[in-house]
């Protein structure tokens, strides 16, 4: 009888300890897998055909894909509105590799993504990708071209004829486009609204708003440094536009 009671106690204690161990394993598993869950869940759900090379005219699409990748690979903004985390281009290694994987899964070839990666390294002053760098890496992703739109500030590029003439090594050409004729993928350089060259910002035209005065841009560092933004509106009077074509 005593032997039976002993065995019963042992069995009960073993059962309870086993449950505790299972709970602890679940807790540890949850802790280990939650930090980059946003990035992982996104990259696990997006499955598109690899090997389809985007056309040069898809510059707007490439810029949108880059913006989406940064957003998907960085943490969500906490509720309340004061803190901003989502879409930060000042990345760490985990976000970096998540971004590259995501772009590859979106259909860009490994070669283009590698060029994008190298371009990103050159495109980050002070640790983050700003407006001109964002244009440069988006163009690189769309075209494979790594030669333009990085070395100078937007104002200098806009004021310097090199954008139109002297960049012979580039695979791309840039044609000045009237603001009444802009289309998705055109590059806009801020021209200070009332006078050319008094401000410095560059973006990619996304769409015209119904008021026909403002447009939506895809860009970085507007209005917050080091963050991508694909829904910001701007008056088109304040920009000078260029159309990008493959040579």
């Amino acid at each position: 009888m005593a032997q039976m009671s002993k065995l019963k106690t042992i069995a009960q204690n073993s059962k309870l300890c086993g449950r505790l161990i299972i709970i602890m394993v679940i807790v540890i598993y949850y802790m280990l897998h939650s930090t980059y869950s946003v990035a992982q869940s996104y990259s696990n759900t997006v499955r598109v055909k690899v090997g389809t090379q985007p056309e040069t005219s898809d510059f707007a699409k490439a810029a949108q894909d880059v913006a989406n990748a940064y957003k998907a690979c960085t943490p969500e903004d906490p509720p309340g509105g004061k803190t901003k985390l989502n879409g930060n281009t000042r990345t760490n290694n985990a976000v970096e590799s998540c971004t590259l994987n995501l772009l590859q899964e979106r259909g860009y070839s490994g070669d283009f993504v590698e060029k994008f990666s190298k371009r990103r390294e050159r495109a980050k002053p002070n640790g983050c990708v700003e407006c001109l760098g964002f244009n440069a890496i988006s163009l690189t992703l769309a075209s494979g071209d790594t030669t333009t739109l990085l070395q100078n500030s937007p104002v200098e590029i806009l004021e310097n004829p090199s954008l139109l003439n002297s960049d012979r090594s580039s695979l791309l050409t840039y044609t000045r486009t009237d603001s009444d004729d802009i289309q998705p993928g055109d590059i806009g350089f801020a021209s200070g609204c009332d006078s050319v060259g008094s401000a410095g910002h560059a973006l990619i035209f996304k769409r015209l708003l119904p008021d026909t005065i403002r447009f939506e841009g895809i860009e970085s560092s507007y209005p917050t440094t080091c963050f991508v933004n694909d829904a910001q509106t701007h008056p088109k009077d304040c920009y000078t536009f260029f159309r990008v074509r493959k040579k």
Partner: protein
Amino acid sequence: MNMEKLFYFLGAHKTMLLFAITGAALVSLFWAFFIFNKRQNIPDQSLPFPTAYPSAQKPSPSQVPFQAVETSPQNNEKNVYPGEIEVSIFTNVYIQSNKSFILEFSPPLPYYFKITNTFPAKQVIAKIYGGLQTNTTYTAVLKDSFGKTVYSWNFTTSITPAQSSSSLQVDKEKAYLEKYYPLVDYTPYKTGSFDIVYKTKSTLEVKMKISDREKVKQEVIDWIKSHGVDPTTHSINYINSF
């Protein structure tokens, strides 16, 4: 001693103790995890604003002048990015308002700066709009409200130009829209009598759907006024569309 004997000797009440210890460990783990996550969520640009503090800690005017304990960029720092950076000064006491100090740069900035943090705070953060000159040594001077220098330091910008001046652009675009397109958020607008859109700066185009021109004109003027805008600031072109 094997496991069977251990469980046997522990008995039921010892098992409960074991549960309590394990439970406490689990609670601690959860707590530590959430604290860790909370810390991870602090952005690199977030500012630790004090929202409340004991009134005894509030500095009286007699405590001024304050002292600068740290700056960013640091004194004599080289190769500072010449873009729209934030210049920060951390102080030893709470600064009550943006009228408690004066911040100056020499040579003068190409554009301007704005103080972006709230007060009271033990820091002053100045956002440089439009960026800095390249390859230039700037002297920043923090003065108290009486004009007495609290701290002065130097930093030198890099040769590489900045890539963006988007904060300056934000200001310019906002001012431009307010000046020339104050009704842009409300256009295009349609009623049974007319459609109205902006054609160019300070110029509206009205498509009249009825033949009573004076009635339409009055309705348009009333609509413009209803948004707090003086109709005389705009040219209005009326086009028949009936």
